[in-house]
């Protein structure tokens, strides 16, 4: 079975919000739209977004590390939001594992948002139904697009290629390799929801060098460890001809 997933590389993400704007741009006019805004130019603006980039800081200045953290639906393999839905509007696609909402069935009771520990679902104030990341389902399944374009808008927009997209169940896909080889992890794994999306951690390229490795203890020519000169200066015996 296919399980489409995103892998987000926190080592690379610079927090530019290009994924946020491209997501809204694509989806507001697509299958999942409209993603309405309220009071967009007023004091307290708000609106529907499928993807947000948050920023966290670890440590105390000057020893800090800034993490830009893109946050969207994780398309769990065992999604807790699906069984609680009273109308069956919330469902997980059998063929590719994407968790979706059928807006024609959704009654806007918000129960799925209570059941999601990640806060991935939002109530659209205009349509009064629950919305969430669709992995750009209308784009990735559109066979009229060339294959290179059959990716979520956020993945195509990311200027640093921090977002990878592929089938997490195919061991040779770009996402599976990244998860396996770059230390990919799931969010809040304690719940057992098995999120399909994974994150790649910060990675530092450091090598361990021990003191004794800088000096060759068994150097036959004693190049690094020049013996101190005997008292009275060099003799003929000390010089190898």
């Amino acid at each position, binding site marked *: 079975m296919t399980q489409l997933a995103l892998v987000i590389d926190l080592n690379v993400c610079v927090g530019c919000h290009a994924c946020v704007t491209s997501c809204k741009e694509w989806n507001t006019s697509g299958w999942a739209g409209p993603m309405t805004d309220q009071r967009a130019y007023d004091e307290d603006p708000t609106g529907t977004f499928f993807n947000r980039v948050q920023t966290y800081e670890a440590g105390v200045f000057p020893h800090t590390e800034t993490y830009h953290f893109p946050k969207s639906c994780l398309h769990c393999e065992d999604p807790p939001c699906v069984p609680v839905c009273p109308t069956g509007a919330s469902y997980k696609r059998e063929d590719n594992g994407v968790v979706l909402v059928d807006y024609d*069935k959704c009654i806007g009771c918000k129960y799925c948002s209570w059941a999601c520990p990640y806060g991935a679902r939002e109530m659209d104030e205009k349509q*009064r139904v629950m919305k969430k990341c669709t992995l750009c389902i209308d784009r990735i399944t559109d066979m009229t697009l060339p294959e290179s374009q059959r990716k979520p808008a956020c993945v195509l927009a990311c200027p640093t290629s921090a977002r990878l997209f592929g089938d997490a169940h195919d061991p040779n896909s770009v996402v599976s390799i990244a998860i396996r080889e770059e230390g990919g992890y799931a969010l809040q794994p304690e*719940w057992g929801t098995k999120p399909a999306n994974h994150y790649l951690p910060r990675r530092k390229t450091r090598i361990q060098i021990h003191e004794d490795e800088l000096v060759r203890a068994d150097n036959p020519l004693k190049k690094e460890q020049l013996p101190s000169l005997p008292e009275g200066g060099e003799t003929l015996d000390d010089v190898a001809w």
Partner: protein
Amino acid sequence: MHPAFSVIFLTTLIGAGQGLFLALYTGQLYSLANLLPVQRDKFYAVGSLAAIALLIGGLVASVFHLGRPEKAWRAATQWRTSWLSREVIVLPATMALTFLYGLLHYLGWTDPLFVISETLPVDLTLIIGALATLATFLLFLCTAMIYASLRFIKAWYSPLTVANFLFLGVASGFMLAAAFSAYLGNNLVSFYGTWAVVATLLGAITRGFSLYRNTRFRCKVDLKSAIGVHHSDLHQKAQGFMGGSFNTREFFHGKSEGFLLMLRYGFLLMVFVLPVILIVLAYILESTRLPMAAFVIQYFGLLIERYHFFTEAKHPQNLYYQSMA
């Protein structure tokens, strides 16, 4: 969680309605066993009407919770997995059976259909009442399990939630039955009052435990696990927006600790202490007004209790919305 007034009214109104029906049916069973004087059918008919009115009131309140109430019928389809869907089925069933129970009494169709062991005459109201009782208990279970089945919200994820909904609903229903009897001036006030006090005290025990539990537990996940950065000193600098979002509106109550403390003492007093005192006083003074006051005070107390129930719940998504710099 942000307290949803539609749900607060839904759960308290149907709780009182269900409790009132249980009180009526209990009264009928007792009189069948000659433990209580037999009431006229009109008593059960009017009482059932009041119970129906409360159930309808709850249903109307619940409509305000929905974004798209015109599609609400669809909510009956996923009863295999969703407690909310089960409630959507059991609530109308309870209403229908309660209505039928009242109607049979109103029409006076109470001639025994058959007699068991030559002592227990079984009429139609007894059978329909038994079915309605089953539906009523199922409805308590469904309503409570909507909250108690959410494993991420630890404050609700407990059998205590079911016990609280049951005992507090039964308490307010019996309290209302006592008030109703006092209004009619019949001799069931002390019977209903006694059971109302028993249910209230049972509710005090379970609600007390859940309050105690909810002040002590620690959430299973923290920010480290939420974003996967294992640093002991993590702070949020930006939430991804400068205004609010659904995430900041739906899952935060935004009330101060002092206000919540006031609510806590308020509902403990109004739900558990005052009604019991008033019922005892009513028994001593043989007053007809005090049971009514007891019901009204307890109902308003239950509204506060349900509000507090929402504020107790800490949703793990709140980890992502800790601060905005």
